[in-house]
């Protein structure tokens, strides 16, 4: 028998992580519930004035998405660290960045993708104008993978730590600022009927940058954390 090719190994690990998540359903549900609840809190806190809500809806949804993404980050490597599987992955015959990328993809499908599905409903609840909802969908589609990718570096650095969670947020949130700025402003511009291609191109640029660099950084960080 021969060793798997790179793409086969990638798909294998992706499927394995999806299977694990599927058998551990809470992992799906929790970030999603958190996302919905945070968005719900805003009208309660600032008053359900339709104009006000519609105006700050992009900000609310994106801040909530950011927090939900951050809270779910730990699960990328946590269970593999706890049961020793991470050692096995680090010693595998395949390049580690590829495996990290597979894990991050699985993580995004499990935690980021549900946000994508639910966000139009929340946008409607906050009274976001119709023409902005398509752009919201687009920004979440492009933006949340960046959050998972960049976040994976942070988790890789904090994976063995007893109080990794709080450190993780300090490490990761500043790095999320550009995504937040461009995503929220794209939606706002769309609500105002303006052209949003500049913001979308920026988000795409972030995505490609994160796709090419963060798996390498996260793999290096994992190696260091495990030593």
């Amino acid at each position, binding site marked *: 028998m021969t060793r798997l090719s790179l793409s086969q190994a990638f798909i294998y690990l992706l499927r394995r992580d999806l299977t694990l998540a599927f058998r551990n359903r809470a992992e799906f549900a929790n970030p999603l519930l958190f996302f919905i609840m945070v968005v719900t809190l805003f009208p309660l806190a600032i008053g359900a004035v339709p104009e006000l809500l519609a105006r700050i809806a992009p900000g609310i949804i994106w801040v909530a998405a950011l927090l939900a993404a951050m809270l779910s980050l730990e699960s990328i490597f946590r269970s593999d660290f706890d049961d020793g599987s991470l050692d096995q992955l680090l010693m595998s015959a395949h390049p580690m960045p590829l495996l990290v990328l597979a894990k991050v993809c699985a993580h995004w499908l499990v935690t980021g993708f549900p946000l994508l599905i639910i966000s139009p409903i929340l946008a409607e609840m906050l009274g976001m104008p119709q023409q902005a909802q398509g752009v919201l969908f687009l920004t979440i589609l492009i933006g949340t993978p960046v959050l998972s990718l960049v976040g994976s570096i942070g988790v890789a*650095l*904090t994976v063995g730590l007893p*109080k990794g969670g709080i*450190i993780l947020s300090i490490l990761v949130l*500043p790095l999320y600022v550009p995504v937040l700025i461009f995503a929220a*402003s794209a939606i706002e511009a769309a609500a105002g009927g303006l052209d949003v291609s500049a913001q979308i191109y920026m988000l795409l640029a*972030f995505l490609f940058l994160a796709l090419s660099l963060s798996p390498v*950084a996260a793999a290096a960080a994992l190696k*260091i954390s495990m030593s």
Partner: protein
Amino acid sequence: MFLWFHKLGSPPHFYRIAGNWLPWLGTIFLLLLVAGVYGGLVLAPPDYQQGDSYRIIFIHVPSAWMSLFIYMVMAACGVVILVWRMKIAEIVLISSAPIGASFTFLALATGSLWGKPMWGTWWVWDARLTSELILLFLYLGVIGLHGAIEDKRVATRAIAILAIVGMVNIPIIHYSVEWWNSLHQGATVTKFDKPSIHWSMLIPLLLMALAFQVYYLLALFQSCRAELLQRERNSKWVEELIAK
């Protein structure tokens, strides 16, 4: 040159050379500081728009420069650590972080003090102040991560990665914030980067910037020596040093 560099890379030599440099650095720092402060507070004329309040920039701008510069040094050390595993780079990286954080804090605090008479509030979401705040978070992340990892060798390698990742992100964050700022406030009233600054203000500004650079070296060297003693306390050269 290379040999000298190589020598500097060995802990006992670095310890000794840094120790020899300390008094000189202290003297140069004081001279530059006195000249800069005198030029900035006394010789430079009041600004025709901002009166005397602009004199804060002699602290604010060099601090902001230093905060960026030190982060760049840290990222460079990060590369050296990961590629060549040089011990001195590890020490320089972790010793630089609190100094950089101090300068960042200074830039923020003085920016706020400058903003009050200019804008009427202590805090404005101005591009420079906002970037500076995020930079402070990046510094705190580095310091926090180093503190959280018990094995200090692992910790320095971890913050090496973090510093490099941060360095890649700093320009992105900076331009995002600038862009965001122009979007929400129109033309800002930032007068820090006036295109033409009079030489009577420029010279003290540069003197202060130099003074801060020298201060960085001074604080860095002493802090590196402390860190070296701490880390290499079991090694022969420390024992010999103490025995003397």
